[in-house]
């Protein structure tokens, strides 16, 4: 029998996907419904906003060092 699973398809490059899977793992696997392929995930509709916010936080942390260099240069 054919199944229809409601959700949000997230398309991103492999490095972003790895970060999203990592966030999911640290949140009791409560965000991702199915890992589809290298660049696609099926995510719970109600969790997309939280996932995005956490991804932005993660990206921001990664940029911390370059930001420091910029502010140092300005000083």
């Amino acid at each position, binding site marked *: *029998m*054919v*199944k*229809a*699973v*409601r*959700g*949000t*398809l*997230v*398309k*991103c*490059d492999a490095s*972003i996907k790895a970060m999203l899977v990592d966030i999911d793992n640290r949140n009791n696997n409560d965000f991702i*419904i*199915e890992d*589809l*392929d290298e660049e*696609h995930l*099926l*995510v719970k*509709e109600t969790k*997309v906003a939280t996932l*995005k916010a956490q*991804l*932005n936080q993660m*990206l*921001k942390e990664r*940029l911390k060092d370059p*930001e420091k260099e910029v502010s140092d240069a300005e000083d």
Partner: protein
Amino acid sequence: VTDQIRLWEMEGERVVTSNGYLMKEFPSEKEYRDVVRYAEDVGVLVWKDDANRRFFINGIEQIQGFLKREAEKRKQRG
């Protein structure tokens, strides 16, 4: 403030989302192909994975109608 805008744009470029339904567990290759072709024709197909007979659509009403009609046809054929 500048950082926030940059991060948002960066994420916007790299992540695309769409709401809808993942269709899966098609019992036969033919049934999968018929439905996927129909989804493409009516413009609701977003992503497909032929190897695993599954695809994602951003609208389900037409697809449900199509599946119902196909099931009726199969019934009539016995």
